[in-house]
């Protein structure tokens, strides 16, 4: 069974937010909401500065608190370890929103909770998620972390990297190359 994840090269990313717009049109994300977003993390004092630019989204955690706390079972882990919300079963109680350390979820105007799906509909067809496919700097990679020959596995072996808030113990599956 595949274990899908993302590897994002912060050296290449310019923070253009193309990934955000592509997600919005691909997935019909309502105006005023987004499933992915950009963080510019600045370190140091003028003129000695460093900056990491990251495209962030749901980490499709292996140990996902949002799934564990969901009272209706709408939040679930699907094939390939993709965390999804079953719209019809979601009552909009927001328990998952409170439990997510990454602030990845929001209430869709139609009442259910929404977030990044890793573009499950595209992945099923063998395509990359929309954000990965659009990125002009080609800084995002999607693939099977289980497969040692996949591009994502190779990148993780060859380059220093980190995940976000590892101390939360959620086992996130998005890694940032530095």
């Amino acid at each position, binding site marked *: 069974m595949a274990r899908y994840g993302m590897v994002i090269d912060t050296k290449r990313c310019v923070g253009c937010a193309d990934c955000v717009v592509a997600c*919005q049109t691909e997935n*019909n994300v309502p*105006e005023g909401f987004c499933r992915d977003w950009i963080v510019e993390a600045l370190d140091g004092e*003028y003129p000695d*500065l460093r900056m990491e630019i990251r495209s962030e989204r749901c980490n499709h955690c292996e140990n996902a608190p949002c799934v564990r706390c969901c009272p209706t079972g709408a939040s679930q882990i699907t094939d390939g370890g993709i965390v999804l919300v079953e719209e019809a079963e979601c009552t909009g109680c927001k328990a998952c929103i409170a439990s997510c350390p990454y602030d990845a979820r929001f209430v869709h105007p139609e009442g259910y909770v929404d977030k990044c799906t890793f573009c499950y509909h595209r992945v099923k067809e063998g395509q990359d998620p929309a954000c990965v496919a*659009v990125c*002009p700097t080609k800084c995002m990679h999607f693939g099977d972390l289980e497969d040692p020959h996949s591009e994502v596995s190779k990148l993780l072996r060859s380059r220093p990297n980190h995940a976000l808030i590892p101390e939360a113990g959620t086992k996130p599956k998005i890694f940032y190359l530095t």
Partner: protein
Amino acid sequence: MAKQFSRREFIKIGGLGLGGAAVGTGIAHSVLGGLGTSPALANPVLSGAIDGVVSTTPTVCEICFWKCAGWVHAVDGQPWKITGNEADTHCNGRLCPRGTGGLGAYLDEDRLRTPLIRTSAHGKQAFREASWDEALTHIAEKLQKIADEHGPECVALFTHGSGGSFFKHVLRAYGSNNISAPSYAQCRGPREEAYTLTFGEGVFSPERTDIRNTRCLVLIGSHLGENMHNTQVQEFADMVGDGGSVITVDPRYSVAASKSKYWLPIRPATDMALMLAWINVIVEEQLYDKDYVESYTYGLDALKHSVRDYTPEWAYPITTIKPQLIRETAREMAHHKPATLIHPGRHVTWYGDDTQRVRAGAILNALLGSWGRRGGFFYPNKASIPKYKYPKYPTPTRTWKDAYPKQFPLANLALANGICDATIPSPERDCSFKGWLVYGTNLLMTLPQPKKTIEAIQNLDLLVAIDLMPAEITGWADVVLPECSYLERYDDLRVSPGRVPAVALRAPAFEPKFNSKPGWWIARELGIKMGLEKYFPWQNIEEYLESRLGGTGISLDELKKKGVINLEERDPIYFEDGVQPEFDTPTGKIELYSTQLEEYGFDPVPKYTAHDRPPEGFMRLLYGRAPMHTFGRTTNNPLLTGLMPENEVWINRWVARLLGIDHEQYVVLVNQDGVRSNKIKAKVTERIRHDCVYMVHGFGHSDKRMRKAFLRGADDAQLVTRVKIDPIMGGTGMRVNFVAVEAA
């Protein structure tokens, strides 16, 4: 004495055109929701499965001039998304955020909907809705009157964007060649002239920079990554990813600076000193490409002599960059030569000596041997698609150059601000401009000194604005013509030279919304009403396109299927691969010493001139771009506004502390002439020097018909009340304004 006409008023008309004559097309509702209403509309992606018939139409993006080819996807005729065309070398299958969000241009509910004519009744000016027939007849009559009374040369066209080519055609057929684009004197004009003076050719657009093979890239105020010119950024990311060396000179820690080996936070307005010091080090230490310089260049000795005092020690107190760092970066550039690219920049109208500053960079490129070499500047292949054969245009008796005799000898294109000046009557001129056609450019934001623009407008007999959006300029027009968005129309072919020359097609993916029309249609109908039938032998655009393609072996049908066709011309693009090193300059060489500048009495080798520093309590106003916006043209786009709804003013943290300004607090900028900006959020940051502030251009729209952009953020152009004119080509240096920051 001339009769005093009532002054032209700016017409603000919130509701007009929003209901009335609008003609719905069945897809007037956006799938993405408009105006904050919930989008309970067709959902093309149901739980991940696309439910419906997907169709794709080829397009060429119009959100910026990079003109990437892409596909418009619709589900059951409803707009879904736009993606890049894999075969296109302008985008390599990946559009930039603005192109990806291009559907917003179509979906925007605030678009102009129907032609409008200015009327005056009971002392009040207002627009009334008009039919196309009425509006175009009105314009044709006015143009005839101007031609009879003053000559057709008194009409000028300002243009920006693809559809402009049809209006240029109308104007030339009418008998005027006063065609100008603010992209010359307000943007890249000095660059093109500086490179032409040095190498005999310009840099062109898209730039002929070979960044993907560059090993050392020097960016002087160019903020690649924030400035999202697609393949340029793609290649930049590739070279950074491959460990290439980047040297960024910028008072601001830009995104590019964050990817650089060296960030040189230079004192604003002193770049020339740094470049001269670099030249000094490179010639003194003999770091230049000796064979190349010997074979191809003219004037090394004169250059050496001229820069001998411009040492790094001299430059230090001017630039605040340490001498050791100036030497180290000069050596770094030399180490990677000839794959070192001193980027020529794009928007370079800064301080009034811009042609000379850009020339200093051109000289560095010449010394390092990067022009015509891999990793430097390549020689683009031409795309040989013939132009449409029209009857000969009448010969104008006067040209735009007559409007300012003996000035700007080296200007090769009409100056938009010059036409603006020459519209204000003056005893020194026998003719002033009487009519303006303004296509797709919001002159109030693109020209500096908006007050002067408004003064010029007061003197016009006719102002026609052709636009998608109710941009500020439309409020000053006599007639407003709503063009449909690029997704609803054909345009002329995109014929592009480059490493791989190509032809690309924009076809309509949707019917024009409301009562808007394609540019080609408007131009043709207007031309016919003006009695210029013989210049419009084609009946519709498809006929025109077929005719242009005739003889190339490419059919319109094939182009509709593929969107872009890469042409066969693949000649070498570098000297090392066989390009003949020929330079169209008076000496036939790369001119380190410019014989043309000498002839016209300018410095043949760039010299340093000190620019004014900010007075006490003021900081220099710098402006730039954000990746998700193309100036003011996208700030109302419902898909892009959310990403950056307003601009912020960047203020150094220590300065903010002294001023008592908090991060995210709203402030007002007041310039040296007392002009106050709209309120703008402060971004208090380590990422900028203390002596300047920075903001993204294109915000702070003052026309309330653009509901998402209206008074969101501040407009930098409004604060540019002063300019320094480049004596060589007439560019308007705009970074010569200073602002103080006050709490809002």
